[in-house]
């Protein structure tokens, strides 16, 4: 329940910590701003849109980055813009679960929706993720504390295994905590695959900090479970080995499917990062890091992804939509962002604002803009708005930019 006073949200009941923060929000920009000398000046939306279009038109290799914090309809326009501009479009998954997608492209994705997990999973594995802090409702709605159709006694019926490099909050509520030496996930997953295949004799005394007996016990728990839900986070995707870790986890799950039912899913970050991957895939064939320079879509993470393009100083203009690269990217990337013309479309001033030339504030999807977002298991959900403000939506701003760009390239 949301309480609105004088056009502002003053309370959000029953929201999780993250949701409450989103609803109550930080102070928002009142209108578009442009850098002038050492300060900022207010400009109109018309001026801001025109200047952004001029910047993008002049660029020989524009980068369009972000997209995961906005609705699907705006993301669609973004892909159209990248194609008309012949630029590079990338979303935040290249620094998040991009490696998961690379692994899925290699060996597939034995996944399922959250509802299946809630009603069926008697063994839940969290590998390299900490849902108590990052996905606060995951355990209560779908796993440890959720009553399911076939699991009426919630936590008594379910077993939880947590694997991480240190004991996290989630590790504290696990039935079994597996402490892996940093960078050792690949070896541990390989060992588990060999055990599930019946090759127990090959396993040494300990593998990356995990004793052989514990590996056998985990494998036995998996083999004796009726339905395993394997969830992994950035502990797998962003540690040494990246997508090969995820591939190994997927292949472990595939191997377990010879004995029982097992599924694997990623613990996604931004509320609509999955939507961004979906939009890019249905429009270009690739999920992120798409280079339209030659008029056709070319995809090669490591070359056409935002970090690489920025660190190698390969782009000459940047449009950031609904994201904050300056807060998350390496220093070399941020330095290049400061050197080239950069426009940010985001409701709130953030770290990237400090390196931008123009910022255009917009409505927030789910608060004062409606739109579609994909849940982390790939289910599209319509987000309604809870109040009306004068802010335009991302879709409206990008739609106007795209219309102006289309004038350059009449059909």
């Amino acid at each position, binding site marked *: 329940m949301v309480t609105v006073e004088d056009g502002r949200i003053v309370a959000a009941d029953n929201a999780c910590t993250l949701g409450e923060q989103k609803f109550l929000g930080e102070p928002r920009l009142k209108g578009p701003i442009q850098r002038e000398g050492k300060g900022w000046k207010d400009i109109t939306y018309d001026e801001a849109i025109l200047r952004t279009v001029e910047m993008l038109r002049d660029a020989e290799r524009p980068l369009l980055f972000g997209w995961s914090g906005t609705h699907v309809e705006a993301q669609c326009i973004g892909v159209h813009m990248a194609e008309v501009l012949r630029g590079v479009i990338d979303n935040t998954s290249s620094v998040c679960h991009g490696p998961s997608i690379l692994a899925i492209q290699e060996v597939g994705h034995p996944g399922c929706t959250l509802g299946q997990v809630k009603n069926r999973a008697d063994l839940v594995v969290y590998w390299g993720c900490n849902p108590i802090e990052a996905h606060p409702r995951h355990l209560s709605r779908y796993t440890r504390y959720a009553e399911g159709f076939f699991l009426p006694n919630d936590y008594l019926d379910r077993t939880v295994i947590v694997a991480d490099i240190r004991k996290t909050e989630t590790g504290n509520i696990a039935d079994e905590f597996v402490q892996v*030496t940093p960078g050792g996930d690949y070896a541990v997953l*390989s060992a588990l695959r060999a055990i599930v295949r019946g090759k127990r004799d090959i396993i040494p005394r300990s593998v990356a900090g995990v004793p052989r007996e514990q590996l056998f016990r985990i494998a036995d728990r998996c083999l004796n479970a009726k339905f395993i839900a394997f969830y992994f986070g950035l502990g797998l995707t962003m540690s040494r080995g990246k997508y090969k870790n995820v591939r190994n986890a997927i292949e472990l799950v595939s191997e377990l499917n010879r004995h029982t039912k097992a599924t694997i899913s990623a613990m996604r970050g931004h509320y609509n990062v999955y939507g961004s991957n979906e939009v890019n895939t249905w429009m270009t064939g690739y999920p992120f890091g798409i280079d339209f*320079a030659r008029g056709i879509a070319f995809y090669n993470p490591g070359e056409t992804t935002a970090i690489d393009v920025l660190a190698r100083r390969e782009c000459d203009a940047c449009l950031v939509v609904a994201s904050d690269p300056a807060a998350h990217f390496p220093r070399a990337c941020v330095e290049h962002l400061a050197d080239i013309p950069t426009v940010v479309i985001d409701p709130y001033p953030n770290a990237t604002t400090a390196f931008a030339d123009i910022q255009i504030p917009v409505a927030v999807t789910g608060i004062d803009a409606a739109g579609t977002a994909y849940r982390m298991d790939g289910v599209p959900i319509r987000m309604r708005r809870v109040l009306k403000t004068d802010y335009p939506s991302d879709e409206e701003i990008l739609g106007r930019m795209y219309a102006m760009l289309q004038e350059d390239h009449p059909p």
Partner: protein
Amino acid sequence: MRVTLQVKPRKKPFLPIEAETIVPAHFLDGTDLVVWKGNRELPLSDVFSVTVEGTAETADEVEITMRGDTSRIKRVGEYMEAGRIVIEDDIGMHCGNFMSGGTIEIGGNADGWLAREMRGGSIICRGNAGNYCASGYRGEKRGMTGGTVEVFGNVGDFAAETLAGGCVVIHGSAGDMAGTEMRGGTLRIEGDCTRVCGNMTAGTCYVFGTVHDMLPTFRRRGTAVHDGVTLTAFTGDIANRGKGNLFVRDYKYMD
């Protein structure tokens, strides 16, 4: 025929140039070729000073020499079938993609994806090579299928990933996960590496240095002498029903 391509200074030197047109066979019909700088198409002569000496009947008789800062020039020698390319300094990504014949010689360092999905011919790199040297493309099951790649320096991560044929020789050290998903061919690493040959199903890999963080899923088969050096022989990757051969001089597990 000798073609010399001298790089001209560019206003935005960091923007990559895509120059898959630089292949010996294309110069048989003159030098009226195009390259791409970002989203703009440019004549070859805008980026290089082009000089041609002599004539040639076939691509075999064409030698291209590239001079100057070529570190941002991508896709040189892509789909090359014959002839010779000599790069005096560093070269950008994707040099020798899908190459099936001829020779590329790189005097400096090579960037990522050197010899990606190579089918034949030979590449010699005198300096270091970046990540994914002699590897495949994203999501592909087969990478390099033929030819030889020789790197005198070190290589980055994922060298010879999904190697399916041909021979890769690295005189220096390899980064993380060399020879991952290997299914054929030969990989030879003279220096050290980490987590070599994960998930391999076939093929042969020799490591004459130390393998750090050796994977626990390779079964020891005894010793073998190769080129006068006694190596420990392994079969794997057991996690993947693999029957690849891995020979290493020294190894350390991550326990």
